[in-house]
């Protein structure tokens, strides 16, 4: 029994069959038939954003906090180009996103029609796959394939471009199980021989470390559980990239804190001095490795990744294991147990003694201030006052993002949404809305800087419309803090365009949006102000005026090695050499 329907109806039907509950979007001429179908049903909820970039970041927040693909619906031309930043963001951070874009009718393509853009051309290099559907008969199958590609293997963004005449025309609906998807089937099981080699290294390592990344989160909650079991059973220390926070709990015995450019002293030293590095779902990003030729010089390196192109891309791997983190960790545990659960106890004890010495440096300590709020302190208080709550955190990009990663503790996966790879300012507010839509009763906080936050502040309108009680915790230093920090370190303290002039009054802004505004400018009032924010039933814009010239430490200056960290303000001039200065 085949079903005939219009292309527009097919879109809605395919989304239902894919289990989609929420779509983030913005209507326009080329998607009106689809919006008309959305209007006539109640299974799929449409969230109207205020700018298409907000739609895709909201979808990213939704996807990362649920593990389900995020769906975006936009019109042709500017609607599609406005989601490009989010598409690249999702590609870099491996977030499953399905973008459905309207297009001018097929007979007008190439004629420079009103709101025509070469959407598949523009998005080709930044999607996992994209399609221009020219026949209604192929529309449903293409959408099913799009979901398959977005969620299989290393997740990522896909785009389906749908001309308006294809939406109006009638065709045959392809049921989900009949859609051809078999040719794209990335390998999930790791090579048993390689896994055995890793187990052999685990059995003898004296100074091992687990270096975990976003792949653990993407693999699903079971992978995080297996990581915890493996870390507990072996007693090996665990560090994580920015993307992987929450896979191993911050309260866990083996936790070293985040690694990398603004990672902890103990995590980076452990990476540098280890003899066995087990990379689980991370990709040796340049924020992590620092200077490549000084990166962990004495270690054997194992790398578990579902994407073969991640292996040996920047760092040579001794034991490459291509597969899904969950499947591979399950096999690692199985084989390690079957061989008698061996570890090098003496070596490990010495290693932990060394790690405790590094921990004693207390690299995240900061000087209290009598006159202003230290941004680190603001985050530390936020952590203390929200601990144990059903809490989701998003961030913008910059110093506040690093402080959030350093001073907030994540106990579970999918609780931390931040733009890691692309570093997209303006990500956090729309992402927080997307998270809140997915988890209406949870506490969702966007830890922001005032400059990033302004980039997509229009999305407060979305939060208001859908009664998403997101808390915008803005560390306001009236500066582009991270830019300012680099100018101090690198450009002779010439602060070129890195201060925020003509800032709005955030409390009045909150009132204008119809939500609550809170301003806090001294430490004595901070706790009460945070409590007030948490207690308010609705969106809050919290303007936390913090120390203006605080720098984010620890820091591995660009072009330096892991064991060459700056711990504080001691002497920061000239720490980045000429070769480091060209790096970002």
């Amino acid at each position, binding site marked *: 029994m085949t079903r005939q329907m219009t292309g527009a109806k097919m879109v809605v039907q395919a989304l239902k069959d894919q289990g989609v509950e929420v779509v983030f979007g913005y209507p326009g001429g080329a998607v009106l038939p689809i919006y008309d179908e959305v209007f006539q049903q109640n299974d799929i909820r449409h969230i109207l954003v205020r700018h298409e970039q907000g739609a895709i970041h909201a979808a990213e927040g939704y996807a990362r906090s649920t593990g389900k693909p995020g769906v975006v619906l936009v019109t042709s031309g500017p609607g599609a180009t406005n989601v490009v930043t989010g598409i690249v963001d999702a590609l870099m951070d491996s977030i499953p996103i399905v973008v459905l874009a309207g297009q001018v009718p097929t007979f007008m393509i190439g004629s420079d029609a009103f709101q025509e853009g070469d959407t598949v*051309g523009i998005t080709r290099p930044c999607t*996992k796959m994209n399609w*221009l559907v020219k026949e209604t008969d192929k529309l449903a199958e293409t959408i099913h394939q799009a979901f398959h590609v977005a969620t299989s293997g290393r997740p990522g963004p896909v785009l389906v471009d749908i001309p308006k005449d294809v939406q109006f025309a009638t065709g045959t609906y392809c049921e989900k199980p009949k859609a051809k998807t078999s040719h794209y089937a990335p390998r999930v099981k790791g090579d048993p021989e390689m896994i055995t080699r890793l187990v052999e290294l685990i059995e003898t390592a004296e100074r091992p470390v687990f270096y975990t990344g976003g792949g653990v989160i993407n693999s699903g909650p079971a992978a995080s559980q297996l990581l915890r079991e493996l870390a507990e059973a072996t007693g090996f220390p665990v560090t994580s990239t920015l993307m992987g926070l929450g896979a191993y709990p911050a309260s866990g015995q083996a936790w070293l804190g985040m690694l990398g450019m603004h990672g902890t002293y103990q995590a980076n030293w452990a990476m540098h001095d280890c003899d066995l590095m087990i990379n689980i779902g991370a990709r040796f990003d340049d924020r992590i490795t620092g200077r490549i030729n000084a990166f962990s010089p004495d270690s054997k390196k194992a790398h578990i990744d579902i994407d073969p*192109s991640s*292996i*040996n*891309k920047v760092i*040579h791997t001794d034991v490459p294991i291509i597969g899904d983190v969950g499947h591979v960790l399950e096999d690692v545990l199985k084989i390690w147990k079957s061989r008698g659960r061996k570890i090098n106890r003496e070596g490990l004890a010495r290693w932990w003694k060394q790690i405790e010495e590094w921990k004693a440096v207390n690299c995240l300590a900061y000087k209290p201030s009598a006159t202003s709020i230290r941004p680190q302190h603001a985050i530390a208080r936020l952590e203390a006052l929200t601990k144990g709550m059903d809490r989701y955190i998003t961030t913008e990009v910059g110093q506040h993002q690093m402080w959030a990663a350093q001073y907030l503790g994540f106990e579970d996966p999918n609780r931390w949404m931040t733009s890691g790879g692309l570093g997209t300012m303006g990500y956090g507010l729309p992402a927080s809305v997307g998270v809140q839509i997915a988890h209406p009763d949870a506490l969702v906080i966007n830890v922001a800087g005032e400059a990033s936050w302004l980039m997509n502040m229009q999305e407060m309108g979305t939060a208001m419309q859908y009664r998403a009680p997101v808390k915008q915790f803005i560390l306001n230093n009236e500066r582009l803090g991270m830019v300012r920090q680099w100018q101090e370190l690198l450009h002779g303290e010439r602060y070129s365009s890195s201060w925020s002039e003509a800032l709005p009054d955030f409390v009045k802004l909150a009132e204008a949006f119809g939500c609550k505004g809170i301003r806090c400018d001294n430490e004595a009032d901070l706790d009460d102000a945070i409590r007030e924010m948490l207690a308010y039933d609705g969106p809050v814009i919290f303007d936390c005026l913090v120390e203006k010239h605080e720098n984010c430490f620890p820091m591995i200056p660009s072009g330096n090695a892991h064991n060459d960290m700056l711990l504080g303000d001691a002497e920061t001039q000239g720490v980045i050499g000429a070769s480091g200065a060209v790096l970002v």
Partner: protein
Amino acid sequence: MSALQIKKGSSKHSAYDLRDPNSELIETHTLAVSVDNESGVLARVIGLFSARGYNIDSLTVAEVDHMGHRSRITVVTSGTPQVITQIKAQLERMVIVHEVHDLTVEGPSVQRELALFKVKGRGEARIEALRLAEIFRANVVDSTLESFVFEMTGTPEKVDAFAELMRPLGLVEVARTGVAALARGA
């Protein structure tokens, strides 16, 4: 290995991959990429090369299986062994790519290119051009009283050599298809 006179990095004639993955030596490889015959596929593959700064020495593409909806892209690329490995991995993970074969390391292969040469001249130069064309087994496919168009197939090296010889004899234009290649044997 040196006793066997097998140069590291030149594994062209070996069934085994003897390359040092950390070598800085630039190698040239011929890759045969089987892709879905869909619009935008070539742009996707070429885009990968330009986006990641890989070299394309030559590239040919055509549909080879109409029923199976497949095209074959033959790309000659050069880079360090690490870069070549990375290129293959990047190609393999693309949704539209079915298979990637590195003909340079997978065994002996036949590589051919078709080229057309327009040579303008009179008198002795014209006769010499015709004589050389015969040696290279190039065919005359167009002729006027003062020009020839030669057609030749061969390895890129042979095409290069012929072009060099024709240059002083009045070579005015060259058109080349790029390399098409197949593994030898069944």
